[in-house]
């Protein structure tokens, strides 16, 4: 397996597709997470698939699958900002469910509110129809390094 730093440098330079970075994590492959890059802007995609269904009668997405998707989106997003990339550890993750997640593709974008040497605060927003109507918003803290 390629060193994480090498892979990230290649993603940044355009030599490698971001998807290779996403697919490095087994759980990301389990959910089927994809990433769309437009320049430096990244949109994460949770394609609709049977495995992420929660309520079968509606049908609606499982809130836990959406949360896991958003957490992993934030982890990838932070990795790409780090000079010496190490997989960040989630300290806490807080999510508000604003609308039902229907059985369709879900998108997420991340914004780093504050990144210190040791801790990053990230805001994540997920939507289906348009980004002005998020289905969930989340914020999370990540530990970047234990020796910083």
């Amino acid at each position, binding site marked *: 397996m390629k060193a994480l730093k090498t892979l990230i440098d290649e993603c940044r330079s355009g030599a490698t597709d971001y998807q290779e970075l996403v697919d490095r994590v087994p759980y990301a492959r389990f959910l089927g997470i994809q990433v769309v890059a437009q320049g430096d802007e990244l949109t994460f995609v949770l394609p609709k698939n049977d495995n992420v*269904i929660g309520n079968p009668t509606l049908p609606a997405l499982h809130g836990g699958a959406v949360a896991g998707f958003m957490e992993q989106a934030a982890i990838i997003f932070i990795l790409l900002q780090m000079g010496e990339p190490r997989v960040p550890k989630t300290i806490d993750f*807080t999510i508000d469910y604003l609308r039902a997640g229907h059985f369709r593709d879900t998108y997420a974008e991340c914004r780093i509110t504050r990144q210190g040497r040791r801790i990053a605060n990230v805001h994540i927003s997920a939507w289906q129809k348009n980004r002005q109507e998020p289905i969930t918003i989340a914020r999370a803290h990540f530990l970047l390094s234990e020796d910083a």
Partner: protein
Amino acid sequence: MTDSSPPFTRLDVCNRFLESVRHSVVLGMEVVSAEETAVRTRLPWREDLVGNPETGVMHGGAIFAMMDHAGGMSITCRTFPVFEITPTIDFRVDHLRGPAKGAAVVCEASCYRLTPHVAFVRITSWEEGNEDAPIATGLATYTRLKIDKAGQVVGQ
């Protein structure tokens, strides 16, 4: 003498609830016990749930998904034998430590306050066999949807 108790238990209802939620089934979640005051579930470690390929630690998202569903089940146990649909309003999880590679994660959820519209739930997770050292704690609220025949979703 008539017996008014329903012909199914809280554990039965929680198991049906689990079976009806595809994502939880695919994760490999299991119901361990279901009492009026608390529900216990477990999630065996699996290669495809790993979040960090270097350490083999299970992804926080998989643990979150189990805790979220266990929280819903804890409400089911309070409203038993009536089954209600209870979408999550908000959920906060603190990851206290990473579970060891290969270890199943067990969680206990408890609905400690039930109002006509909102349920307040606490959830704690630990590595199986290591209950004294929680790996994650959660605090969540759920809303109670009044839907006729909701029980048939999981009951029949």
